[in-house]
């Protein structure tokens, strides 16, 4: 293996040293800046979750006090939602892959891309600094009047941090939309785009249109806390419920910012490892757009018990059922893609199949919650916690792991160890279900969320969940080690180890600094797995490296 020749022609060998990375405008390197920082945030947020689960192993509050517990779940939520899930796939895999997938040399605005990372770090570290001073105990939702009148933590600092990170999200969103519109390779029409690109587009639209509303609500909170302008304070003429409307107008679409990219990853992985074109390409592509649009119309389902008008409740319930339709379209099409496929169970495929199972399960639980009567019963219980963790962790993080393994050879030029990958995927799946399935039961039995003590009869389910959390933590720590190991010791990856379609596989692994030696032209649809040279070959990626 000729390391010299490879490093001098790849983006990784373009220049070493901190300055070459911290001042880079190469989208592939910016993706790494994000990947490293997001991994740190993920494990930080995860450590808080593990602490909470250990506390909940016994009914009494014996490990941490109620105040500390409140701060733990608030920061767990803030870190995981804003500093991991929202940027996760778009800022790492999306940043790396979007230009490669559409045959461009870079994103439309490379400097804006780098700036977005700096803004992200500025905001997230500012918010984390509030921990040093004493933390925040409002929950990640910053509900008023708790956050404005009663909370004695550093709410303004955390809110300003999240507000700043919002700028980074908007920068990424604008960059992606313009890139997809203006930089597609010749012949790459909209309906030849990989679904991953479609989901990036839908995600970017939501980022650009929803994030400013979060900004507005956070500004109003800070104005109330620091300047005494009582927008949400009834004593000053304001209305606390208004905050929930504004917050969920952002935060529900934000759920789709988080899950749509995961759907994109799975739409790439499933066809590849079943050697079949994606079933119902147009339906899958357009259902992403439908999700993006419907996502803006369902925020009221977070407020069924808030005292909003009953008629609004009925309407929001109906619309919430509607948003399940495009998701179901995707699930059916993914399942049909597998039909008659030559399926192999490489690590990305395992993760993708686990995604399919967990997302479907979590999504169906979402239908329970969309029903008014059931929601009133399980509102603010562990049922809701279990539902969104099935979507966000079981769905989104699993898809993120699928994507990370799938494109790892492209990003690093190295293969990850396949056996370890399969073990980690399986451990994650088992640990995840052990952690969160008991929470459905707990919630249905009436265990409210955000409490650090509980009646002894709930202990059985809590112990199961806490044990699962440990298994899940092991499942997430394993890739940290073997992927890190493979960076230096992994087998060299060929340009296209999975024999996948898509422009990103037509350039070297790792790609050269400007992505393509000759600008690609496209004349075929996406997922053309019937194409000569890809079909009916014995599929053995790891024997390919000679």
């Amino acid at each position, binding site marked *: 293996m000729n390391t010299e020749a490879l490093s001098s022609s790849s983006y990784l060998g373009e220049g070493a040293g901190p300055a070459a990375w911290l001042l880079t405008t190469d989208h592939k390197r910016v993706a790494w800046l994000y990947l490293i920082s997001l991994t740190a945030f993920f494990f930080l947020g995860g450590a808080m979750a593990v602490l909470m689960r250990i506390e909940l192993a016994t009914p009494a509050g014996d490990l941490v006090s109620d105040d500390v517990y409140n701060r733990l779940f608030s920061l767990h939520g803030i870190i995981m939602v804003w500093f991991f899930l929202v940027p996760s796939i778009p800022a790492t895999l999306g940043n790396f892959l979007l230009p490669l997938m559409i045959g461009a040399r870079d994103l439309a605005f490379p400097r804006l891309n780098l700036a977005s990372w700096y803004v992200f770090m500025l905001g997230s570290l500012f918010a984390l600094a509030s921990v040093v001073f004493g933390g925040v105990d409002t929950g990640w939702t910053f509900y008023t009047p708790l956050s404005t009148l009663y909370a004695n933590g550093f709410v303004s600092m955390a809110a300003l941090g999240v507000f700043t990170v919002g700028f980074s999200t908007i920068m990424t969103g604008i960059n992606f939309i313009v890139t997809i519109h203006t930089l597609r390779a010749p012949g790459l029409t909209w309906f030849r785009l990989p679904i991953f690109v479609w989901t990036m587009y839908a995600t970017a639209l939501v980022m650009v249109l929803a994030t400013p509303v979060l900004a507005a609500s956070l500004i109003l909170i800070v104005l109330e806390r620091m300047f005494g302008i*009582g927008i949400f304070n009834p004593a000053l003429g304001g209305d606390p419920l208004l905050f929930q409307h504004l917050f969920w107008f952002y935060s529900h679409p934000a759920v789709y910012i988080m899950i749509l990219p995961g759907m994109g990853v799975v739409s790439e992985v499933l066809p590849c490892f079943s050697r079949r074109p994606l079933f119902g390409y147009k339906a899958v592509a357009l259902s992403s757009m439908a999700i993006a649009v419907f996502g803006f119309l369902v925020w009221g389902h977070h407020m069924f018990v808030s005292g909003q008008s009953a008629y609004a409740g009925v309407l929001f319930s109906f619309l919430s059922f509607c948003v399940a339709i495009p998701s179901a379209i995707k699930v059916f099409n993914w399942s049909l893609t597998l039909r008659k496929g030559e399926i192999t169970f490489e690590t990305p495929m395992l993760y993708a199949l686990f995604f399919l199972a967990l997302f479907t399960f979590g999504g169906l639980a979402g239908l329970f919650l969309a029903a008014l009567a059931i929601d009133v019963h399980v509102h603010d219980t562990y049922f809701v916690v279990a539902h969104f963790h099935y979507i966000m962790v079981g769905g989104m993080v699993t898809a993120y792991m699928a994507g990370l393994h799938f494109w790892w050879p492209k990003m690093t030029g190295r293969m990850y160890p396949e056996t370890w990958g399969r073990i980690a995927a399986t451990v994650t799946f088992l640990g995840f279900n052990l952690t969160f399935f008991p929470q459905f039961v707990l919630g249905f039995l009436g265990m409210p969320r955000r409490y650090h003590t509980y009646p002894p009869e709930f202990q059985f389910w809590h112990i199961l969940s806490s044990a699962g959390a440990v298994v899940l933590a092991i499942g997430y720590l394993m890739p940290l080690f073997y992927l890190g190991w493979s960076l230096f010791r992994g087998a060299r990856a060929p340009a296209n180890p999975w024999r996948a379609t898509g422009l990103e596989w037509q350039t070297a692994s790792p790609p050269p600094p400007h992505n393509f030696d000759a600008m690609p032209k496209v004349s075929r649809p996406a997922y053309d797995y019937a194409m000569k040279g890809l079909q009916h070959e014995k599929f053995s990626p790891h024997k390919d490296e000679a």
Partner: protein
Amino acid sequence: MGASTESVAFDKPAREQAADTFAMWIFIGSEAMLFGAILLVFLIARISYGPAFAAASHHLSLPLGTLNTVVLITSSFSMALAHLFGNRGRWRASTWSLAATALLGLVFLGIKAAEYTMEFREGIAPVLGVPFTYDGPDPVHAEFFFGLYFAMASLHAVHLIGGIVVIAGMLVMWSSATQSSRLRRVRAIGLYWHFVDIVWVFLFPILYLINR
């Protein structure tokens, strides 16, 4: 026009210019959602507490508000001139128009500051714990009106300050920029400036002109 592009992603300057303008429009869409959310809050409150808001609105200075509207629309005119002159290669005139735009922005901020001072003296600025003294009907909801007024006008002012800073930065780096990149920057900041003006065109009637 120079044949170079600022981003490595583009082959042709014309494509890059189109992408710039497109990006600016998306950004403006995003900004519209920001102001839209707060306008919505205002409108809900306005419908709920109509009479209190109308009475409170009459405590704002209509002459100064009107003067500011004129100043800001004039600044939009000079911004449009800067773009027009730039397009025709008359860079001296374009530079002066840009400077005039920024200056008019500063005048607007000055008048706004004077208004804020008057409102503080009158005791109708419910900010930073300053005692709120108001002799009209329904003082609680009047205070809500003034709170919203300060929030919205200040958010607008922050946007204006951002625009002025960008124009100043552009003028500082003016001599080192190529003509095509100057033109791109004028077009982008121009779109932004007009947007901030249009926001004021909405704020002025809903804040100052209730039942006048």
